[in-house]
Every structure is written in C-alpha cells, then in structure tokens.
C-alpha cells in the first residue's frame, strides 16, 4: 500500500511555483513527482497533474489566456475524462483551467487592484471530494495567497449551479470560519477561493497549498489537500 503516486507538474514559460510543488510532493510528502514541459503530449502515466502558480506568458493579455493554448493542454481534457485521473490548478493554474473552460467562471483584478501576498483563512465547504477528504466540514485552513487577479467571477446561473451541486470547495473566511466581506480579500463572488468541476476530478484554487507544508513557513495546512488526493487515489 506504500506505492507512491505519480504527480506531473506542468511547466509553462513563466510558471514559477513549479519547483515549490515539486518540493512539496517529492521532498515533503515523499511521492513521485516530475516536471512536464508545456509542449509535451505524453501525460497518460500520471495519476495527478498539477498546474502550478506563476505568470505563464507574463499573464500579459489575461492571466492564463495564452497558456491554455499550450500543446500539453490538448491532451488535458482527454486526461480528465479518464477514470481515476485528477488535476489541480493552483493560482495561475486555476486561471488557466478557467480560460480553458475546464472550470466555469473567470478571474478579475483584485478589488483593491493590487497584488496581495499574505496568509488567508479558507473554510472547507465540501469534504466529500478527492481533494478534501482529510478535512472536516467547515474546517478553517490557513494557506497563503499571492495574486493580482484572483477575484473570481461567474454569472448568477453558474453560481447557483456551483452551489446546488456542492462544487464550491473553499471560501475565504475569518479566523473563526465566518464568511465575511472583510475576509473576502480579493472581492471574489460568494467568497469563492476554490471550485471543482462537475465530474469532481478537477480542482482550481487561488491559495497555495504548496506554501503551507512545514511549520517554519507558517502553516502545515496545505498538506491536508495533497494528502487527501494521495489517500483518495490509493483507496480507489
């Protein structure tokens, strides 16, 4: 049962959290993980793909807009349609998934128009997922954000569907788990910090779990997310 999982971390030109994800998975959690170049097509062997944070193509047009046309993205929908395959997009990775239409909605500039790097609190809204099964419902996780365009937006119909189908996974909250306007750092609709697709195998989130892996960095809560995926895949 100690078989290691295979994580593939996609490197786009301008990705800059790729090495952090590798460290989190390989060095901290002792899994198999390697980089996948954005032009690669061969992604079948991985259990889980990670689209890391950064500034793919400088985020020059819109964050994630150009990266979604990378060659590797052509195989990604196929990958996602297979059984027992998972994708997690973090920050810029989330933005790419939105641009690619693999998750619904879009990102706007943070409401204060500034880049924000700090620890935030998020509640776990749904624990019945491959990404959060290690968490308790309503649990408050302390995980940093670092983005200028993380103000999640979707139209009302989409929002209602997300709510109805329980696809909102994380929401910005205060340290007591209260969902308040003040805790909504970037102005996201409904305080959304992370969502999942209908099938339940693609997660997009703005906070960086790979930055909350050891206590010296301020929190170990990020492990819960990775560990959930690992547990889930091992069990199935």
């Amino acid at each position, binding site marked *: 049962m100690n078989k290691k999982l295979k994580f593939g971390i996609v490197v786009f030109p301008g990705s800059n*959290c790729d090495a952090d994800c590798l*460290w989190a998975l390989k*060095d901290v959690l002792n899994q198999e993980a390697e980089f996948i170049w954005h032009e690669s097509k061969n992604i079948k062997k991985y259990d889980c793909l990670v689209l890391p944070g950064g*500034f793919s193509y*400088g985020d020059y047009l819109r964050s994630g807009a150009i990266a979604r046309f990378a060659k590797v993205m052509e195989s990604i929908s196929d990958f996602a349609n297979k059984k027992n395959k998972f994708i997690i997009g973090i920050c810029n990775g989330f933005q790419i998934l939105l641009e690619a239409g693999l998750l619904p909605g879009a990102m706007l500039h943070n409401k204060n128009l*500034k*880049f*924000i790097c700090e620890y935030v609190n998020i509640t776990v809204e749904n624990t019945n997922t491959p990404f959060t099964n290690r968490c308790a419902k309503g649990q408050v996780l302390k995980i940093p954000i670092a983005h200028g365009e993380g103000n999640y937006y979707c139209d009302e119909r989409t929002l209602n569907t997300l709510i109805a189908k329980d696809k909102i996974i994380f929401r910005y909250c205060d340290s007591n788990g209260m969902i308040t306007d003040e805790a909504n750092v970037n102005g996201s609709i409904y305080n959304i910090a992370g969502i999942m697709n209908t099938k339940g195998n693609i997660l997009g989130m703005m906070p960086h779990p790979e930055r909350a892996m050891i206590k010296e960095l*301020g929190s170990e809560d990020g492990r819960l997310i990775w560990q959930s995926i690992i547990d889930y895949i091992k069990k199935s």
Partner: protein
Amino acid sequence: MNNYDIEITDEILKEHNLNKEEYNNIIKILGRKPNIVELGVFSAMWSEHCSYKHSKPVLKKFPTKGKYVLQGPGENAGIIDTKLGIGIAFKIESHNHPSSVEPFQGAATGVGGILRDIFTMGARPVAILDSLRFGNIKTLKTQHLLHGVVSGIAFYGNCVGVPTVAGETVFEDSYQDNCLVNAMTIGIVNKNKIKKGIAKGAGNPIMYIGALTGRDGIHGASFASAELTEENQKRRSSVQVADPFMEKLLLEATLELIDKNLVIGIQDMGAAGLTSSSSEMAYRAGTGVEIDIDKVPKRELNMNAYEVLLSESQERMLLVCKKGNEKKVEKILRKWGLHAVKIGKVIKEQKFKIYENGKIVADIPIRALTDSSYKYFPLKKQKGIKPEYLKNININNDDIKVPDNIEEIFKKLISSPNISCKSNIWRQYDHMVQTNTFTLPGSDAAVINIKGKDLLLSTSVDGNGRYVYLDPFTGGMIAVAEAARNVSMSGAQPIAFTNCLNFGNPEDPEIFYQFQKAVEGMAYAAKKLNTPVISGNVSFYNESPQNAIYPTPVVGMVGYIKGKNKRYVKQYFKNEGDIIVLLGETKEEIGASEYLKEIHNMVKGPVPGIDMAKEKALQKTCIEGIKNGIIISAHDISKGGLAVALAECCLSGKLHNEKAIGAYIELQSDIRIDALLFGETQSRAIVTVKRENLLRLKRIASKNKIIATEIGKTGGDRLIINIDWAAKKYSKKLNLDLNEIEKLWMTGVNEYV
C-alpha cells in the same frame, strides 16, 4: 550610409558630458579625432556611472578580503563561500533617476537589472530586497512615486518568481525631488558553476541573447550621471519598459546554458549596454572584441551604430561560448522561446572594433575604456572640504524641554511615516514564492532557508541618511553596524555586505567630503565586524537645483545560521510570561533621532555615538544566546528608541500569523524620559528568555561585557511602562492599549499604498 565623421563642436562635447581635457585625451589615445560613434562610446564609458571616476580612489578603503570571500568587487556581483559547496552571490544597485522620472518602469527595470547581475554569475536568485527613500508622504508627488515604485517592484519580482523578502522605506524632505530606489538580489550558486564576465579565447563567438535592441535609454548612461533638471525630466523617450516575462525566460535559459557548460563568459547589458558589456568582458580577459552592428537584433528601423552601441534596452545578455558550440547554445535558447545571434568574435588585439555595413566605425583600445590605471583614464582626484553646515549642527540636550505628554508623543511617533508599519508595501510583493522564507517581512532581518543544506541566510538592508548628513563618519559606521545588528538579531553571524552609495554631486567638495567620510566610517565598521564588502554601486548627482539628498549609504548585509537545527528567532514576543531583558546601556542621546525630528521638528546632532567593540559584543551575545536556544525573541533598538522597539515586539507577531502580546515593563532610570524612551543609543537590543534561562543569558552577556537588565515580563493586551527615577523620587507610567497602538502603527504609510 551613415556619416559619423562630423565636426565635434563644444556643443556636442557638452551633450556628451565630456570636457576639453577629456576630449584631447581621446585624440591622444586614438592618434586622431574620434568620430561621433567613438565619442559616444567614450562618453558612456567615461561617465561616472561606468567609470567610477570620482569614487574609485575612495572605494579602495573598503576591506574586500576574508575567509568567506570567493569573489570581491569588480564582477557583476560578489560571492561569499558557505563552505558547504555553494556560494552566495549578492549585490545592490540603484535606479534612482529612472524611478524619479517614471516610477513604475524605473523601479521595475531596476529590479530586472540587479536580477541579471546575479544570474549572469550562474547563481539562481533566491531573494530581493528594496531600499526606498521618498520626500514628504503628505505630498501628491510622493504618493505618486511611492505607488509607482512599489507596484513596479511588485510587477517585476512577482512575475520572475523571486521573493522580495525585506527592505526599508524612509520619508525625508531631502528626497522630495530625488527619490532613491535601491534593489538588492541574493542568489545561490554551485561553487564549480560560477561564471564571470570574461571574453576569453580569440576566435570564440560573441552571442547576443534576449530582447531586441531599441532606442531605449540612449544617453542613459550619461543621462544617469547628470543632475536631474527640468529639461531632463522632459527627455522622456529614454524610458525603458520592463518585460519580466522575458527576464524569466532569460534567467532559466542562462542557468541552463551554464549548467550544460556552454558558457565561457557572460554579462548582462546594463548601463551603456553593448558597449560596456563587451569592452568589460574583453578587458577582464585581456582580449579584444569585434562586433558587427548589422547582426545585432533590432526592434526599430534604421538604427545606427551609435544608437545600437549605446542603447540600454532591458533584458539582454552577451555571451561568449566556445567556437563550435553555437548550435547548442541556440538550441537551448529556442527551447525557452528565445534566440541567440552571433554578433561578433573575441580577438587577440586588445581593441574594441565595431563594424557597420562592412566598414569599421569604431576602433578603440579596450584599456582606454575600462582600465582606471590607464594613462588617459579620466580619474578625478577630487578633494573634500568639510561642509559649512557641520560647524553648527549639534544641539545641547538642555535646550530641549523635557516633555510631559509622553503617551501622546509615543502615539505620534508610532504613527509617523518612518516608524509605522510598512505591511501594505510588502503585501504587494510575493515574499513567499520559492518556499524558503522562514522569517517574513516585519522582523529585523529576513531568514531564507537553503533547502538541502544545514544553512539559513539572514539578510537586511539599512541606511540612515540623516545620521550621515549630521556626522558622515559616525553615520557611515552606524549604517554597517545596524545592518549587521539586524542580521544578528535573527541569530545569524554577519558575513559580508554590499553597499549602494547615494550622494549628491561629487564635483562639489563638500559633497565629496560627505562621501569620503561616510566610506571611511563604513570601512572602519566593516573591519571591526569582520564583514568585508563584496560588491556595490555608486549613485552620484542625486540633487535638484534646490538641494542635494542627504548622503545615503545603504548597506545590504548577509549572514549565516549554520548547524543541523538551524536555530533562529524573530523580533516579536513569542509567549506570555517570558522575561524581557534589555541588552546594552541607554545613554542620554536625543540628537539625530526620529523623536527630535517628529516632535521638535529638528534635524540636529549629535548623532548617537557608537563603539564598535561594544557593538560586536552585543551581536555576539545575541547570536550565542539564540544558538543555545536561550533567547526566544530578539529585536534591536533603532528608530524611535526603546519605547517603539518594545511596541514592535508586542505587535509584530500579528504580521507573522501569530498574535500580539503585551508587556509589563519597569525601568529604573537616571536619565531624562525622552532620551530613555525615544533616544537612539546604539548597540542595544530587547530579548526574551524563559525565567529559568535568565541566568544563562546573563552569563553570556557578562562574558561579552554587555549589560543585561531584566526589565519586565510579556503578557496581557497592553504595553505598560513604569519608570522610576529613584534619585529624584519620581515615577511615571505609560499605559497603552495594544489595539489602539496597532491601529496607529498601521496608519502613517499603509494608508498611502
């Protein structure tokens, strides 16, 4: 066909910042009159920016050697050894003038430049620091500059993925027309992969990589060396636009080239672009270069040799590889979406030879451009004269009335621009990327983990222009001492530093005096602390017609925390019930303080004295106490004195994901209250220990001849300071609500960014 053989008039010489004597020397060097291209090349290379013609003799005073120094000044960056197989490369650089003109792009390209200086050495950048100075924060101009500069730094550093982990932000009227933007980068390099800017091996190709050459910043080098007059403000075409995405690609490609051993020498094209990079690389190798202007990749139409040679377009590098390896180099660049173009070759003859349309358009001995010992090199033997203003600059403490509204004064200080919290600045910087930032901004020094090694780096950037203005020598000493002190507060041994010397016009003997004395003070402190200078930068002409800036040397210190358990501490109180100890003595010093400026509106000396032996002993005490696990938190006392330092110890846990913790303090004193609470006596620190470790700390302190005074206990949600003057049978109490002072601390600067 361009005609460069134009008559060199006085007008043209003036435009090129060259005087008659220099011009005559050029004629002697060439044995003929220069054409306009050659004149441009000389002008750029002999500008203050590239030649260091005023500063070089003075800079010789710095100690630059030591057991940790792998690479001293003279290269793109200095490197220190860790004795663990890796070197730490770092350097600081100014981008003052460009940032004054165009704050966003100026600051952004400043970060870009210093990042390139690091990765050209083969080092991967792991941290950025920024040292910023502006005028009065209440003015719209300052707010505009502050906003632009901070967002420019954020834009660049965040995109490239290097954390901006520490800095300083100062507001003082003397910077109203000349803001200072200094940026520092630290990188780590495998010891056997260190690369230098050398063009070795005649016949080897010179390859150009990175962004295309445009007309950006032409005259940039001479522009940066001229006083910023209104007219210069209008020369807006020389603004360079930053492209951090290109930088990120260049960074990865460069490190891959070096990793695959394809690089003989490499240097970024900084000030004076292609001209300085190629001639410096040749000079260091004792070779020459031959470059074909037609081959240089250009962004704009009809660019001539003059423009191409002097362009300061950003994100470009020059590389020399072994002949035959061109294809391999190109392949790696292609992978990163970039191109490498062969634009020339290394030649044996020590000359700078430029061709355009098959014709030679510049032919200059390399040494004439780069070697300050060369006969005709325009080194200036400037003399300093003690400035008039220094004769009457000191006050007598007795002239200042002892105030009694101490709580109000405290509140005013804690919310003043120079003391209040800068969290809204660093919140815009990604200070966590690379997952190594163990101590986030908001402590004396940032602590950076080096994965896979028993090593942490600690770093801080510090300067105090006001001190240096009031007493250049002492101020220079304190700049070094404070940077080292901040680093040692984290538990690290300061190892070496880089420095950026921001001054006014060096041709003014009084400014030159400030420069000389400040450097002497810094050099003295460096020797005493055993922290050599490994790199640096000089920025002169920071003055407007109204005034020169305060002489502002900025010190970027790097220290090591070694050992398996990598013990380090932060500045804030960690637990309730810990014992608070004051290390060092408080003297009756109020001169030069933030208190004197903010409350009495006076910029007067004397600057607090500093005894370097005491300073070293204080640092040693802290380092030892932390290493042994005795000291739980440590914070030095600087701007705002003891009271402000205590408040910072109470509050700054909140910046690090922990809570604020109050304190109950009892002070026995025989000096006046304002000096006691707000004076800036040097070589002091506030540390906390567990009750059972107090004696051990006292032993370490007394061994080092440092006075350790138990002054209170942590806990509660107030900062209470009880002061007792036994001799005068008098006592006084400050009782402050942490929530209230936190709010005040968060104004001052945060509301403007």
